[in-house]
């Protein structure tokens, strides 16, 4: 208890609160701007955190982290452009809700979901850290490979009406994923390798630029089309209630719990990340809602469930990613990797020794994380009435701004490396054209992003798993976790096919 009080003393300064508040606002703004990621936001404030007390500095970093993950939902809901990869699964239902005139509820719901995810995963972090850290150690390459397999079959499930089109786009995502350095040897793997290996393409298509291109740039082209045909976009500026009814939230407890669990666990497994967590939890929510006998709406129809599931999950990832970061010194995602670096610059070595030697600091980290989450919710909620004003702006003004932001984001990713920045802008433009033609012809965007992310993960972990077994599959069939995921994959495929058959019969 005395160590807890010492921890409390470390954070109970006005400056800690002020910096947390600043970090949360900065994070929300960065998260809401397309292409600016949580990782970048943290890197941006490291120099500031260096000047502050350790506990205050860490509070600032955590606030930026939470804010950026939560803020990404704002453009996803209003414009259909995710601020960063954390919000890709929020786009579909968020957009549908906005069109229905429920933008206020979607935005408010996203904030509450983020708060539940953030604080919920923190409870796991505080009480079950050692246990979960041990659990994630059971995830070796073979297990991660089969986990990504689950994600891949979800491609079929998120494909909307046409499984075939979805799978096709998933395959295209895989093609994009396979471009770049060979994950095992680092050898250049691309056409014209002799020339391209010294360009930024040596790293393949950058993930963030790809995402911004597919969702942001393509959206601008699409609206441009509408303007030319003088079609009035059916934008609804009435935002309705901000707070979703309390009863509704309570009725979704199963969705919330499953998303919280999935987000925390996936966040805690290094090398996986929020993108897979949000789609998995959304998929789980579909199952739960279908079995609810009409009490809950099924995600995909423009309902609060479809916003809650991914938004709980992506903020649960933040707490989850801190579990291995603090208890093992291993980053759960790229944002926590930067965070660990910042901790070390601040003179704190995360890991075993942190818990055994510096409990007050650990408590202060827990406290600032809670404070950061509360500020995040407070500030984002404060603006909910404001954000939808964006929709009042004429498309003729708004779209050029979106286009500019879509290029600034990828460019800013590269610091002052001009050639790389220009290349990333080119990637965004290329993907924008690809995305435009896909949208126009009714091909879904989500599978291509999922394929891009999971393709890399599947290939890398598959090859490493086989290499670990000395060239055979022994690591796969000797692991119960692998069997679990393989069976889960089969079940998802079967249930998706059955669902589609049923839907066809009903038509």
């Amino acid at each position, binding site marked *: 208890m005395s160590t807890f009080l010492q921890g409390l003393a470390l954070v109970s300064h006005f400056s800690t609160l002020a910096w947390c508040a600043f970090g949360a606002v900065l994070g929300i703004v960065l998260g809401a701007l397309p292409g600016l990621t949580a990782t970048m936001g943290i890197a941006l404030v490291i120099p500031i955190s260096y000047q502050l007390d350790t506990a205050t500095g860490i509070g600032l970093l955590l606030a930026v982290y939470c804010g950026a993950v939560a803020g990404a939902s704002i453009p996803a809901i209003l414009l259909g452009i995710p601020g960063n990869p954390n919000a890709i699964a929020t786009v579909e239902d968020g957009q549908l809700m906005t069109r229905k005139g429920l933008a206020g509820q979607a935005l408010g719901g996203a904030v509450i979901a983020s708060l539940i995810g953030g604080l919920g995963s923190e409870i796991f972090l505080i009480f079950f850290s050692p246990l979960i850290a041990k659990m994630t150690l*059971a995830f*070796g390459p073979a297990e991660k490979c089969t986990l990504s397999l689950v994600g891949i079959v979800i491609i079929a499930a998120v494909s909307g009406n046409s499984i075939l089109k979805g799978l096709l786009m998933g395959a295209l995502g895989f093609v994009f994923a396979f471009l770049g350095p060979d994950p095992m040897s680092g050898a250049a793997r691309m056409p014209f390798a002799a020339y391209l290996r010294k360009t*930024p393409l*040596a790293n393949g298509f950058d993930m963030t630029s790809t995402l911004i291109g597919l969702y942001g740039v393509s959206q601008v082209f699409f609206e441009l089309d509408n303007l030319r045909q003088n079609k009035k976009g059916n934008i609804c500026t009435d935002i309705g209630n901000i707070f979703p009814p309390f009863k509704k939230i309570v009725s979704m407890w199963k969705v919330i719990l499953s998303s919280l669990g999935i987000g925390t666990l996936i966040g805690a497994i290094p090398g996986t990340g929020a993108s897979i967590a949000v789609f998995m939890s959304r998929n789980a929510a579909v199952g739960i809602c279908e079995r609810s006998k009409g009490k809950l709406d099924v995600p995909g129809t423009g309902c609060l469930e479809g916003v809650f599931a991914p938004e709980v999950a992506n903020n649960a990832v933040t707490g989850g990613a801190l579990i291995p970061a603090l208890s093992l010194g291993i980053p759960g995602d790229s944002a926590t990797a930067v965070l*660990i670096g*910042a901790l070390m610059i601040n003179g704190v070595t995360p890991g075993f020794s942190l818990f055994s030697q510096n409990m007050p600091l650990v408590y202060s980290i827990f406290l600032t994380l809670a404070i950061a989450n509360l500020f995040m919710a407070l500030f984002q909620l404060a603006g909910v009435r404001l954000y939808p004003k964006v929709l009042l702006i004429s498309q003729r003004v708004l779209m050029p701004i979106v286009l500019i932001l879509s290029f600034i984001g990828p460019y800013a990713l590269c610091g002052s490396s001009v050639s790389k920045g220009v290349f990333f802008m080119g990637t965004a433009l290329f993907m924008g054209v690809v995305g435009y033609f896909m949208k126009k012809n009714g091909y879904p965007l989500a599978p291509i992003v999922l394929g891009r992310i999971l393709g890399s993960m599947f290939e890398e972990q598959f090859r490493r798993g086989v290499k670990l077994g*000395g060239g055979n599959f022994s*690591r796969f069939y000797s692991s119960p976790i692998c069997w679990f995921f393989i069976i889960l994959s089969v079940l998802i495929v079967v249930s998706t096919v059955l669902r589609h058959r049923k839907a066809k019969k009903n038509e």
Partner: protein
Amino acid sequence: MKKILAVVLALALVLALGAVSFADFEPDYEKTITLIVPQGAGGGTDTQARQLVEAMKQVSGFDNIIVENVTGGSTGIGTNQVIDAEPDGYTLLMYGTYVICGTMTGNTDGYKGLDFLDGLSLEPFMIAVPTESPYQTLDDLIQAAKADPGKIVLGNAGATATTGVVAYGLSIACDNAFNVVPFNGGAELIPAVLGGHADAGIFSQSEVQANADGLRPLVFLGDGHSVIPEFAEVPNMADAGYGDLVVPGGCFRGICTTKGSPEEMEKWVADVVEEAYNSELFQGWLNGAGLLGQFSKLEDFEAFNLDMIETMKPIIQATGLAVGEYAE
């Protein structure tokens, strides 16, 4: 009052300048010196760069020094950016063993396009196993590997990372007895070894330190013994009975700049870095992080680098990753 202030400021300036003895050369104080780190923010290389820059600002009075992380292409992208920069000596590279790997594997022109300023440090590696592992010594591990070649997994942080070179080097020296598996950085290697997915791994000391309850260091790969008290007892290669194996013992780091930069500027930077290296701030950090200081300057650093290249060439060749002249 103003006068006193002016005198104090002037004095401070004189003292600051006097602290470093430069020839007549003065850099352009309006310009910015950029130290490019070809690895991500927060890693060991990045932390060292940031510490060095703080010390450089202190000793030189030159405030416009920034660190920039340019990642990708197995450190090739950042390295190429320095090679292609204006040769004015204001763009510096955090050079390291990884640049040699990148040069031999064809990701960058590497050391051929660079001028060498200061060698700084060696970060010694350790081989560690999970605490519950049956292998108590390096000999146990190597004997087990030789008894059933390809069964014992030796993990590392990536084929073109320095730990990768060390792992391949060790395995080759043991008649390819190990199953050398590259992971995606320490972040994936540590849990894989802790979770028993790999039998042993090659780590930096700070990585082992952070997981002291889960990892058991078998051998210290640097010269002599660790300067970190808790690892001082860990045997080195000679203690372990494998003194005759030639394996790179760690990652060395230094400062380079674009080839063909003005000689006076190179000399000035090299002097400032030397002063910064000897500062209390940098030395304190170096010891705390368990790194071995190993300073060399200009032509000495270049000669040191040539030695390193000779050691690494046969290993990179044996991995099959070498291209062009290095493959022969």
